[in-house]
């Protein structure tokens, strides 16, 4: 759905004219779509981006604002020098590992959080040079015009419509109807999470359990010694 399509559906849902709404301006409706997109991105964690960061000499800490302005949270940090994923750890674990870990230099092997807006790597580079790659969950980019489409899967576009209707009802102080629509919105988010989760699960390797008779109906089990039917 384009932004125009979503806006039309929202205004229809609020019993407003899609072309010349009385209680809404086009800008306000677009703001609701933007806010709903932010919320959807936070909940579904579906928007992913990658940034490359240069290793600066002596630097342990990196500000996420200096990496990308749409960075919500990194989920993978990968060293280009080592061709290896950095292991997630905490400052507390590093304290246990090395008394003065902040002074240790070398090729980074670990990364750790420092609040939402910066993180650290260990060990830190002394000379600088080289890069690490940050894969991160992102907030959505602003939609540029009415023909622009949100990045979410098509089935999640309806969720944005629901959020817009819900916010419109709140603006009317119609809390009863708003709560009903909000419940639908949350339900859609649940399904959206499922879709995002399925994409993750597909990448995993699965195999049947090797346990004796485990999970099989008695009628298809070969014999009581666990031999499978041929």
């Amino acid at each position, binding site marked *: 759905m384009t932004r125009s399509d979503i806006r039309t559906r929202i205004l229809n849902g609020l019993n407003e004219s899609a072309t010349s709404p009385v209680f809404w301006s086009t800008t306000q409706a677009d703001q609701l779509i933007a806010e709903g997109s932010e919320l959807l991105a936070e909940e579904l964690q579906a928007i992913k981006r990658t940034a490359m960061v240069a290793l600066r000499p*002596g630097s342990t800490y990196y500000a996420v604002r200096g990496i990308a302005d749409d960075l919500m949270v990194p989920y*993978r940090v990968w060293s280009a020098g080592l061709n290896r994923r950095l292991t*997630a750890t905490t400052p507390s674990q590093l304290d246990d590992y090395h008394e003065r870990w902040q002074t240790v230099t070398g090729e980074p092997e670990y*990364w750790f959080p420092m609040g939402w807006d910066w993180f650290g790597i260990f060990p830190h580079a002394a000379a600088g040079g080289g890069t690490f790659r940050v894969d991160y*969950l992102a907030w959505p980019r602003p939609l540029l015009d009415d023909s622009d489409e949100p990045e979410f899967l098509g089935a999640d576009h309806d969720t944005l419509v629901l959020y817009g209707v819900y916010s419109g009802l709140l603006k009317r*102080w119609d809390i009863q109807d708003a*709560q009903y629509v909000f419940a639908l919105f949350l339900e859609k988010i649940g399904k959206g999470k499922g879709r995002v989760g399925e994409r993750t699960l597909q990448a995993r390797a699965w195999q049947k359990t090797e346990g004796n008779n485990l999970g099989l109906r008695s009628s298809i089990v070969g014999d009581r010694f666990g031999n499978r039917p041929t």
Partner: protein
Amino acid sequence: MATVDAELDLVQERLHDNAAIWTRAELLTFFNDGYREFLAKTRAVVRIHLMDVPPRYAMTYCYEWEARHTFGGPSRMMMLPNYDATKRVTSLWEAEQNEGVTPTASYAGKTQEWERAYGNETDRQFVFALPANHDLILRVAWDDKRLHPVTVREYDETDDAWFRQAGEPWWWMLGTNRVRSIEIYEIVTTYTQSYAFLDYAEHGFARSCTGTRTWGLDSEVYANNYAYTTNGDNQHQNLDATPHLTGLGWRVTMQPNAPNQSYCCTYQWEVDRHNGDTLTNSSTAQTYWWEELHGGAHLEFGVGTMRSIISPDRQYWALNSGAATNNVLGGIRDMRSSTDAVEVTHAVIPDRQLGEPDAPDLLPEQAHKYLRYYCWMRAFGRQGPGQNGALAEHYRGRFEMGTQKFRTLANQTHQDVVLVRESHDGGGRGTPPRVRLPSNYPAVW
């Protein structure tokens, strides 16, 4: 980043109120409360605070009423109440004197911790005051080494005069002092100041630095875009609606000090002549910075500042102070090192009230919607016209959703941690239960 006034416009829009019921000032208060509440609940913003050893305070005081004038800055009550709190003392003998007891020899009294570097042994606690934005301590280190948290009781049961024990710091505690302070033991009395600002009052914030390490500066010291010669040029630039020249201008002439002199001189000897002084040698006249290449003086203008410092030895990490639009563009107001210093990693809250032109920039712009929810929660929850309990409760839930989400985001590695199951044998499950004896077990006295 959206400023507070833009956010309050959105808040008013949904309240359908143009300050008739909820005044703008009231909504600003709600917004500030929400900002503080959001940061306190999520602990999403973590900062490092470094303190020289022995600690320094912005202010020390002697009477309770003086605390009113510390404005939440790092401060400490240095004198202690005595004689039904009608008198204040720094040394124990003073308490004896006040109460009519023959004074005995006691340790030295102090009014600033740095006095430890110059004076006799004292029995005062070794207290470090934290800044106004402090909320929760996550880690304390000295000289890059983690200190372990202990309690006063644990120390009391271990040693008799632990608070006078000099040596290397190993422990930190909340201690016996006021909020926003910690104590470090063992104590260090050698004075170590990491960096000292030179001519701060005269020249403003730092534009350069010197030291023993190897480093490189990234500094934008602006060059002049144009040169001008008289006050008339200046007035023309200021009064004209569309100035002919833009950027940084530099007046290349000098004016004599003697009265009734309106000359504009290009050489120092001309100034001397009009002032009636002895003529002095003058440097080459110039109009632009690049004329330095041709014998002109090196020009430095009072604008621009250090933007980054890179060193192979360690990181120079810029921390913004918060509470202003684009405050990361400001200058360096303070510079500290973790070497031989106390380093506190703590979750912070805003240290001042935002005004409408400010921006809550400790948070990403995407979090601003949760601050609006908080405003609506408070507005609809307030008794009087416009009160709507159901809406207030709904917005409270939305605000809480946001705090939970950001608490998770603040732990950035939560997406990347590999969890493993506990071992079958129960190893690593913590302390085994204590032995329980039957009630009829014979007691030995």
